[in-house]
């Protein structure tokens, strides 16, 4: 994969709130990518794949990277309106939104709250629903060594991707790692803990955007049956399953995911 030059900048969002870190790369139609609870990885391979076909903007939620001010976001409404403000600040009208996992939940929530403000939507294994017969796994109680199996179809690939740069036996690294993890998942917990249901099911019917729903067939964190639930609730939508991919389908099959998104958006 060719590396696309990534510009990382701080975006002012006004009202005396802290600036937001935004990654930007690629050519083509603009697209906003909202990351999942794990944030963006160093040289994030899904971000890079998106940049191969789109002009992608990826803002980091407060609590992630240099985006500060997570203490100002207490609940789902705060986080959703914050996302809307970031999109305004990017100056993109009727934007194309792609969200993965927690980011998919935020994208769906925004599209439901402000159905006329979102152009096109792609939700990749979004969180936000709860089915009693298919409980979402408890991400917050997992230890680092348990994540590859939870998040990947190919556990060995998961170990390789997730362990890159991790040295938990080094106390200095561990201290930084724990701070980063506490900031990220502390913020994510306001949206996802203890059960990732903040009432989205009551609002999904309001979404007007034409919506692609993508799911890794081997997703063990949020099982593909949730894809059917989203597809049923969102009027103008289609579910596509990606074989041999887990919850991080974005990192396991980036080319397939980006091709599917491009085909969907080009068709609309």
């Amino acid at each position: 994969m060719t590396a696309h030059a990534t510009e990382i900048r701080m975006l002012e969002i006004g009202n005396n709130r802290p600036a937001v870190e935004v990654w930007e790369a690629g050519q083509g139609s603009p697209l906003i990518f909202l990351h999942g609870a794990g944030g963006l990885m160093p040289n994030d391979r899904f971000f890079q794949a998106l940049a191969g076909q789109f002009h992608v903007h990826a803002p980091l939620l407060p609590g992630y990277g240099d985006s500060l001010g997570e203490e100002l976001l207490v609940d789902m409404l705060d986080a959703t309106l914050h996302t809307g403000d970031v999109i305004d600040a990017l100056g993109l009208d009727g934007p194309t939104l792609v969200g993965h996992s927690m980011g998919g939940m935020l994208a769906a929530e925004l599209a439901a709250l402000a159905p006329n403000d979102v152009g096109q939507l792609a939700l990749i294994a979004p969180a936000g629903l709860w089915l009693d017969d298919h409980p979402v796994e408890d991400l917050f109680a997992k230890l680092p060594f348990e994540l590859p199996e939870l998040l990947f179809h190919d556990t060995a690939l998961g170990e390789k991707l997730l362990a890159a740069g991790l040295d938990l036996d080094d106390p200095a690294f561990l201290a930084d790692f724990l701070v980063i993890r506490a900031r990220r998942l502390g913020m994510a917990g306001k949206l996802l803990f203890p059960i990732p249901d903040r009432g989205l099911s009551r609002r999904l019917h309001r979404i007007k955007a034409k919506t692609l729903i993508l799911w890794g067939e081997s997703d063990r964190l949020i099982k593909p049956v949730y894809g059917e639930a989203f597809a049923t609730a969102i009027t103008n939508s289609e579910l596509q399953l990606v074989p041999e991919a887990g919850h991080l389908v974005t990192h396991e099959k980036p080319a397939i995911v980006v091709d599917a998104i491009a085909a969907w958006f080009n068709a609309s």
Partner: protein
Amino acid sequence: MKFTWFNLMPWPHLPEDFREQHRSVWVDIPSSLYDPKKGHEVYNTYLDQLEYAESLGFDGIGVNEHHANAYGLMPSPNIMAAALARRTSKAALVVLGNSIALYNPPIRVAEEFAMLDVISGGRLVAGFPVGTSMDTNYAYGQVPALTRDKYVEAHELIRRAWKEDEPFHFNGRFTQLRYANCWPKPIQSPRPPVFIPGGGSVETYDFCIENEYAYSYLSFTGYKRAQVLMDGFWDRVDEMGADKSPYRAGFAQTICVAETDEEAKELYGEHVNYFFNRCLHIYPGYADAPGYRTIKTIKKGALSQFTRASLDTLGKLSWEELVADGHIIAGSPETVVRQMKELITGLKVGNIFCLLHIGNMTNEKTRLSSRLFAEEVMPKLQNMWPEWADDERFWIHPLEDRIKPSVPIAAMGGAD
């Protein structure tokens, strides 16, 4: 010195192969391992022991709050304290404590603590823990990053509820009450003594010092491992310009007393083993929900004591190693006096929470160890802090003329 006899109330019937068959004693342990009929005997035996501790001369008797936990069978410590309030007359009722972020609305804590204080004639010590991550986040579903904000707000509401003489409005982020109005109010005015269980969160040091609350370190790893954390507390006391009364601080310690050192090992070894290997078998994924600890605390390196490394180590240590490292204080009265003096002077604490019932210890052994401690150890430790003998700020102030409950009919041999 103030000695509080404390019972965690562990379930004593965990199977031999518990570690192999289950990943955690807490949060997701199946309740099929609990047998209510045996539980009837367990609760009543434990309550009897707390009452016995008063008769032995302990200054306080202590209970605490845990949820979905097989080593702590008191989801409602106030029920236990209520049972004890009517059957005891002198000892402080040390409720350590109510996890105030979990009560909805938290004025419930102001009310129930006031009830306990009134029933007991002013013998309540009120504890306000944040609660462990296992209890608060995993078992009770609180959002980790909001737990401390909720705690702070609940504390403000409770203190105001005790203080105000008229109904007041309370417009919090988590609790809104148009008519906040605490009936009854506590006897101890403006409040009972407050103990704050802490485990190394730096914010808790300041909170205790500012409010004149006693900082209580409830550790399972013993006094030698507690030195750094307690030094951190005393450093803050210095920095904030407060006096160094040892009654600002307390420590929980596992203690086993027998006639000789050898007998202590023989009598109590298996029960200590049960506690460290079965009761403290905790899945480390539940130890610290991300967001539960503040960034400031993580940066100080103060992590949960419930990590896999620390717990696994404890379970593998021999009796001799456990004693040598101070994880347990155990042996003859002379040995225990010596170790207790090290603990008290090393950590500079005036309050000791004595864990004298351990794991699945039988009633007879628990009483033996407790009696030997009360008769042969406590008297030799009473005068450790003579210059602070008159410091009454951190202990109970009961009514002089307290009511004695009338004797029940059954106890007089009457109708059942």
